[in-house]
């Protein structure tokens, strides 16, 4: 029970602290924090917000999983941002240019997206393994190039088509869509959410039950001990980067298969960076990440209500930042507190068993 407390107390503390902080900021700017937070909470019940939160949670969840795989072995894959962009545009191009029976079509798009993400991640991975190039730099650079590539691919004279002032890839025919669950006015939940859940379960099983997960964790913990234990460091870098890239490739599929059916200028960017924060918030644990993704999505979507009550929406970003920071601080504080308690306990035991020692 104390175990559980140690896990749940910190986030709770952190959220309270962040709300206080933002409350103060709101008061300074002359707004009423209670009405602001109230608006955010009631927003959940309005229109399709609840479903939007669920959808967005799924997307963030996939992104954070992709990041977490790299983190597990101390690989800092900042490149998720670029990987999912490249995967999205390639999957959209391929999906829009083939005709296959329903189901198979969708499956092909998913596979293509995963492969494209993995391929984009393979470049920094190979550079790291063969040339020792630091993955932080190379993935930052690859993110830039990803935008270039996607811009090139949707050029009118390449795969793009003009639509008003927008430009986009050919629409994926209905056989390639993934049906969602419609709640009428409440919006439509992406079918891909279930894939996200499956990915989370798969991630948990992989990390905790398989040899590969063991090797990944061992490499992250101590690359020297892992190599003495027969773990091939280069192979692990390669495989985990590819895996991370493949999962990153799926990030945009909920929207692509469930709503947009095309890659256009309206592409949702920035999920890869949110994924970093969420993975860290969830401490690379599939459950923790789910919580982090949900929190993130809630703040994002219900934050839209702030406009209605005349409160600057930036408060949400501040809240996200302060939650990330205060959650980890809270974990540390609670840890220290428990350590001290343990020390006192030992002291007491020494007092009673002192004679025997």
């Amino acid at each position: 029970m104390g175990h559980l407390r140690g896990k749940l107390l910190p986030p709770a503390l952190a959220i309270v602290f962040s709300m206080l902080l933002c409350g103060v900021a709101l008061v300074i700017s002359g707004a009423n924090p209670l009405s602001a937070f109230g608006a955010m909470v009631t927003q959940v019940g309005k229109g399709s917000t609840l479903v939007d939160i669920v959808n967005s949670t799924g997307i963030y969840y996939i992104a954070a999983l992709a990041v977490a795989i790299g983190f597990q072995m101390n690989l800092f894959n900042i490149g998720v941002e670029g990987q999912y962009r490249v995967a999205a545009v390639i999957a959209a191009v391929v999906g829009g240019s083939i005709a296959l029976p329903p189901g198979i079509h969708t499956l092909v798009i998913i596979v293509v997206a995963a492969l494209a993400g993995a391929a984009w991640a393979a470049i920094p991975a190979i550079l790291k393994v063969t040339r020792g190039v630091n993955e932080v730099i190379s993935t930052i650079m690859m993110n830039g190039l990803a935008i270039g590539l996607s811009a090139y691919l949707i050029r009118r004279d390449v795969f793009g088509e003009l639509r008003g002032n927008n430009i986009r890839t050919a629409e994926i025919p209905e056989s390639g869509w993934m049906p969602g669950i419609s709640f009428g006015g409440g919006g439509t939940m992406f079918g891909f959410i279930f894939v996200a859940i499956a990915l989370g379960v798969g991630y948990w099983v992989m990390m905790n039950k398989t040899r590969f997960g063991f090797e990944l964790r061992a490499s992250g913990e101590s690359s020297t001990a892992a190599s003495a234990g027969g773990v091939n460091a280069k192979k692990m870098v390669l495989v985990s980067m590819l895996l991370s890239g493949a999962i990153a490739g799926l990030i945009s599929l909920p929207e692509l298969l469930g709503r947009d059916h095309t890659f256009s200028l309206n592409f949702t960017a920035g999920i890869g960076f949110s994924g970093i924060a969420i993975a860290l918030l969830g401490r690379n644990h599939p459950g923790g990440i789910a919580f982090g993704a949900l929190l993130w999505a809630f703040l994002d979507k219900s934050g839209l209500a702030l406009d209605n009550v005349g409160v600057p929406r930036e408060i949400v970003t501040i809240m996200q930042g302060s939650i990330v920071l205060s959650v980890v601080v809270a974990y540390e504080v609670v840890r220290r507190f428990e350590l001290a308690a343990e020390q006192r306990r030992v002291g007491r035991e020494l007092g009673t068993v002192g004679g025997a020692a």
Partner: protein
Amino acid sequence: MSSSTSARTDDPPAVVLTGITKRFPGVVANSDVHLTVRRGEVHALCGENGAGKSTLMKILYGMQPPDEGTIEVNGEQVRFRTPSDAIKAGIGMVHQHFMLADNLTVQENVVLGAEALHGIGQKARKRIIELSGKTGLNVDPGVLVEQLGVADRQRVEILKVLYRGAKVIILDEPTAVLVPQEVNELFDTVRGMQEQGYTFLFISHKLDEVRAIADSVTVIRRGTTVGSADPKTVSSRQLAEMMVGSELPSPETRESTVTDKVVLDVRGLKLMTPDGSRPILDDVDLVVRSGEVVGIAGVEGNGQTELVETVMGMRKAGSGTITLLDADLTKLGTLARREAGIGYVPEDRHRHGLLLTQPLWYNRILGYQTRKPTSKGIWLDTDGAKKDTERIVADFDVRTPGIDVPAAALSGGNQQKLVVGRELSGDPKLLIASHPTRGVDVGAQALIWDEIKRARAAGLAVLLISADLDELIGLSDTIKVMLRGRLVADADPNTVTPEDLGSAMTGAGATSASVQETGTAHGTAVVEEGAN
């Protein structure tokens, strides 16, 4: 001022520790420790692994605050909040694990924190060179520490202490990594400085050394002082009994179990430095038979580490073949070599042996992630791993509150027992043991020796690397001397003495009949070295 009137007649002791208690989560490292160190003496501290020696010394050095108890230095009660307080009081410490920044130069490491004395420039450099003579360090102060061998690092550590003008010097297991000659040099330095009025606190698991250097001995057991002894009269055996209450073990294994069956056959092994300029391993030929312990003697840095890591597949050989029981391992990776039947006790358990923040049972899987009982196919078998860890904990007397504690929470000796236990599981054909008892107390040492001997009797081939020459001579059936990447001499463990071995290791040449130079005379090696 007023309180010391009574002590004025006699010199106050250099250090008095009274009633020191220190608690860590789950452990009481020190409980009511009392210790008095007279000025100008070498005072030894003995105790089992995890007895609390290092902790006590860290308290004296201001690195950790005591929960209870007082410290007096030169009769004055002091309270150290940081090491700088202790340094100001004239206390210096050489840590068991080197406290050096690899990527800084010797000079930078020495002057760090004491820049006020002579700055960080030429004056400091002069002073270091001046002091170097005292410790026998003869390297350019501008050289990076990462390029130094262990003995030189040890000297840099002592230099750091001297540079600060410490009068009380703590040496925490300084000899664990030194060969006898180097130990002698160190002891000479210590004695010389003792005459100049320095006081030493000396920790070692090698009780002969303790008796050789110390003026008085304090024994610590399970965190408390259990007594003191006069090193002139006490025997190692008695000391050990005070420490653990058991008999002093010996590594001797006279009855030979060597068979004809070749287990490991290494031929023409070559390894170059990463920049390709020099060989680290030069044409090494080595055969280990079933039931045989082959010991490799050598000053650290002569290629033993690289030999072991090349045989393990952690480094890629330039040329040569490695065969294990007719299976050619040359092209295989580390995991495949392990699966072929090699067990590996690495020289640095923290770097190569353990995942420190993971529980003990998780560490059991490392290196065995493809084999029973820790895995089934691609799946881990956590139950199997846990059960087998319980077995190791019981069989190897690993002192731990449970198998779910992180490996870091164990003291060094117990960590080592866990590693040895793991590497002897899974029925290895060959065990490569690098310094298997380094930093391990006498009790644990005996246990590890016994286990190695038992496995050897059952047909295990053992390649043993050790800086502890008694251990090497006692355990080995054959000893080979390694110098500059070559196996330059064979020694007969039945007749050779540590001193003979030591001089062969340093390249001073064979001084005894029991050390035979091998085919490629090492004189040639020297010539070639010169030609490089």
